[in-house]
């Protein structure tokens, strides 16, 4: 019974698969702001405790519960800190997502990249699926989210989503200072950012209830 409940898909939940590095922080905020502005709920592996023995199983449960999965492969490269090694987590989670689709799970997955045609070279197995190219900018992320998702309510414009992103950026800066954080890739920061962006969306009147 518990397993059945875990497998229930929430079409509003969007799993975000992205790198946890400070260079990516602006895009991380843009994804959270954009999805929240569209009435969706960002979910992330940060919700799964890092030390949990059944981490992979819990990650899988989270993946299967989300109606959509976004995989940003724009920074699949050598990590900046030693020992330098390629980042396999993002392609690995994309692999899990495609396996779910092939196994008949009802969800959609999207691949985001910063450069056109690079994915065809780095991951030719998924040739046939065009990635959404965000140019490595928050504006690009917000634009491409609008291309990926269609909402049957009043659709926020990219300009409106940029206003949301700016408010979230202001909050993130203050949140870091108040909590003595050097980065925002922690479970509590993720929860706070998602809650804040949803609250800001309501206050801006971007989405109706």
């Amino acid at each position, binding site marked *: 019974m518990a397993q059945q409940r875990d497998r229930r898909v929430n*079409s*509003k939940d969007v799993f975000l698969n992205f790198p946890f590095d400070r260079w990516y922080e602006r895009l991380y905020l843009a994804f959270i702001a954009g999805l929240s502005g*569209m*009435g*969706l*709920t960002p*979910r992330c592996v940060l*919700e799964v405790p890092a030390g949990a023995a059944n981490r992979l199983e819990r990650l899988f449960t989270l993946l299967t519960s989300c*109606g*959509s999965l976004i995989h940003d492969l724009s920074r699949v490269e050598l990590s900046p800190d030693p020992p330098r090694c390629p980042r396999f987590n993002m392609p690995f989670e994309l692999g899990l997502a495609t396996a779910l689709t092939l196994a008949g799970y009802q969800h*959609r997955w*999207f691949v985001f990249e910063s450069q056109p045609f690079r994915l065809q070279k780095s991951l030719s197995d998924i*040739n*046939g*699926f*065009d990635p*959404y190219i965000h140019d490595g900018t928050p504006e690009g992320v917000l634009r491409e989210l609008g*291309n*990926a*998702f*269609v*909402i*049957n309510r*009043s659709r926020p414009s990219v300009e*409106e989503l940029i*206003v949301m992103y700016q*408010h979230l950026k*202001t*909050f993130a*800066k*203050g*949140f870091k200072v*108040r909590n003595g954080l050097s980065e925002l890739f922690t479970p509590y920061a*993720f*929860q*706070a950012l*998602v*809650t*804040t962006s*949803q*609250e*800001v969306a*309501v*206050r*801006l*009147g*971007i*989405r109706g*209830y």
Partner: protein
Amino acid sequence: MAYPKPFIIKTRPDTPEETAKRLGLSKAEFHKIIKLVDEIVGPVSPIKSKAVHARSSRARVSSRPSRLPA
């Protein structure tokens, strides 16, 4: 090659409180974050209210029977 078909979302968005609960935040933590939003972000002016009001007032005017001045 083509983009995948856009994914159409038809359901009502969760409220911030519902979202916070699903993400595992307690009610107290939710209110703490909302207080932080008030302190850090400050007042936020709605960007859609003008358009909504304009639309609704137009609708009211058009449905009202016309009256000539006395």
